[in-house]
């Protein structure tokens, strides 16, 4: 099985540790994941802001990068949702029957990380160790667009040392919403501040989710509040082991400007 990592533009440019964590995790589980270097972005920023013509060349690039793989795994529920549910809209806009066919072929092979682990590899215990109190935010697109259900929870519950605390009003949107966070910044922040309040109510040290874009937003609010709660992608927690400790404080320096 040829497996490609779709790291996503946000992770590529802003959160490379998440991509590295996926590579570490999948190799540990025996998957020799490839990184198609032609990849860029899934086109979601353009599609969800209404710029369909601009999305067409991005989706073409996406198809060139990922066609031919048996599975595409991505640490983002939102980007997986765009590939599976929105590429068809872009392809139809292009009027190119070949592109319509290509996205129909490749789209269904895209799996969000927790789906890939649970459904394709059939594992919930990935051998991770993370001795911290953690709360989990199910991001909207992973929850309602993809329907990942309790897969991330099952993965987290199997992590040794991890104490999972329920997040109040977990299913409510954090207010990121892509360009919504900029175009309607006030409303976005109002939603984010309520989400941050719920996170603080849990007493957790770490907020985990499957989308770094949402975490960048909630984490940005928590940071401004000096809340002392850090955000981490699910992949980074699942990649941590006794020998390769992903301590919240130790993990940070890696690959990050200092």
């Amino acid at each position, binding site marked *: 099985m040829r497996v490609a990592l779709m790291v996503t*533009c946000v*992770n*590529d*440019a*802003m*959160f*490379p540790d998440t*991509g*590295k964590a996926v*590579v570490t995790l999948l190799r540990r589980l025996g998957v020799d994941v490839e*990184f198609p*270097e032609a*990849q*860029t*972005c899934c*086109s979601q*920023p353009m599609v*969800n*802001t*209404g*710029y369909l*013509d*601009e999305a067409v*060349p*991005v989706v073409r*690039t996406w198809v060139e990068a990922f066609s031919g793989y048996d599975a595409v795994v991505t640490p983002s529920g939102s980007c997986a949702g765009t590939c599976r549910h929105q590429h068809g*809209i872009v392809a139809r806009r292009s009027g190119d029957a070949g592109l319509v066919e290509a996205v129909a072929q490749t789209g269904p092979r895209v799996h969000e990380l927790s789906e890939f682990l649970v459904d394709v590899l059939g594992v919930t215990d990935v051998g991770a160790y993370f001795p911290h109190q953690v709360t989990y935010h199910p991001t*909207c*697109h992973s929850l309602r*667009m993809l329907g990942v259900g309790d897969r991330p929870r099952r993965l987290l519950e199997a992590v040794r040392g991890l104490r999972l605390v329920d997040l109040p009003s977990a299913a*409510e949107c954090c*207010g*990121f919403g*892509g*360009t*919504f966070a*900029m*175009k*309607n*910044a*006030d*409303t976005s*922040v*109002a*939603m984010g*501040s*309520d989400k941050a309040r719920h996170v603080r109510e849990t007493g957790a040290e770490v907020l985990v989710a499957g989308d770094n874009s949402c975490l*960048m*937003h909630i*984490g*940005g609010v*928590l*940071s401004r509040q000096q*809340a*002392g709660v*850090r955000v981490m992608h699910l992949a980074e927690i699942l990649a941590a082991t006794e020998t390769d400790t992903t301590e919240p*404080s130790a993990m*940070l320096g890696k690959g*990050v*400007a200092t």
Partner: protein
Amino acid sequence: MSATFVGMPAFPEAARAALADPQLRHNLAHATDTIRRKRASVVAEIPEWEELRLVGAAVKDSALRSLDTHLVELEERLVANGAVVHWARDAAEACAIVAEVATRHSAEEVVKVKSMVTQEIGLNEALAAQGIAAWETDLAELIVQLGDDLPSHILVPAIHRNRAEIREIFRTKMAAAGRPAPDDLTDDPAALAGAAREHLREKFLRAKVAVSGANFAVAETGTLVVVESEGNGRMCLTLPDVLVSVVGIEKVLPTWESLDPMMRLLPRSSTGERMNPYTSTWSGVTPGDGPQEVHVVLLDNGRTNALADDVGRQALRCIRCSACLNVCPVYERTGGHAYGSVYPGPIGAILNPLLKGTGVDEQTDSLPYASSLCGACFEACPVRIDIPEVLVHLRTKVVDSHRGDRVLKPEAVAMKAAAFAFSDARRLALAERASGLAGRVIGRWGKTRLPGGRPAAGRIPGPGAAWTSARDMPAPPKESFRAWWKRTSGGRS
């Protein structure tokens, strides 16, 4: 009502004012949370709820597919039952028809059943211009009307008011509109409802003409249906001699049988009740019983435009339950006024642009962007309107309407630049190298650190302020993932 939505600013600006209103935020959070819980508990009682939603969507879709034949059948049945049927292309035509009926009966006032469509067409204002007072008789609509206010929710239009405010409105405004509030009126809900009941009863008994909308119009029997909770609708529909009902053409259902799934879906989704207290149905005139002159105004007002939109037409399935408002995290914080329309919330964000058209005014064009696309509305909608799908579709229409502009908006320039970078991995790598340099600068000179220690940008001016005025922004890493993969052969060296 003297207040008007006309001239409201675009959503982001209107929302800013609403977000800064602590009373509004408190009332909305409490009210939407309560109604969400009620809805969730009664929906959970129906094991086949998801199938029922599919049936509801299918019934409305089939009705809309053959709207032309169903409407003609509805007209034929209504006429055969003794009703007078009028067709109105737009708000002005519909208002003129209602005013003409009232004037012909020398009516100086009409009593009204709560109705979204008559608000959509601005009927009260149109009647006022002809010297006819239109009295709202739904308790919350009465509060809104007496307070010279605007509705902020489809089902509970005074959701933004608390009982102290309502007492004050009743004490100061009721006398000018009829029977005054008692001198010893308290803010006890039962006392407030009692004052409204006394006040309204006089109007019910006095009025010669009533105006209503309809929740459904059954074509095969020529029957209009009104679903309500307070009994004020029943009073209006049975006491006056003349009844005029304004009905959007999308309200038609083919058969009596097709009403069944709707009546199961609507109350649970709307008020969170298994069944609503009052359901009134009437098929034209019944001699010696109820109104003896019955008019039905079938209204387009943009609905055929919506019907012509292959993605947007699903919005015409809407049964005005307001479940999408109650679950919407944006609505919960901004309230309804920010949407600048009688149709607020997620459904308003798609219905207004569909009815009014995109690329016409900035306020309407701002509505499809008034959503984080979280999808809670689609999940709650009893007739499965995929609101996020329609929002994205309408955003595309808004953008397309500006493609011919001579000066591009900054956002359009940014999107074109992003598309250029994202169309070729080598270009993206160059952009990432530049952002890595910015990251080094922030890391060296910036003082902000995220919990855990990662360098971050604090408040930055200019375009960055939209993000950083309330949120720290992680500094870009010095090395992108793709650069790391290349440098280390995928971490192997």
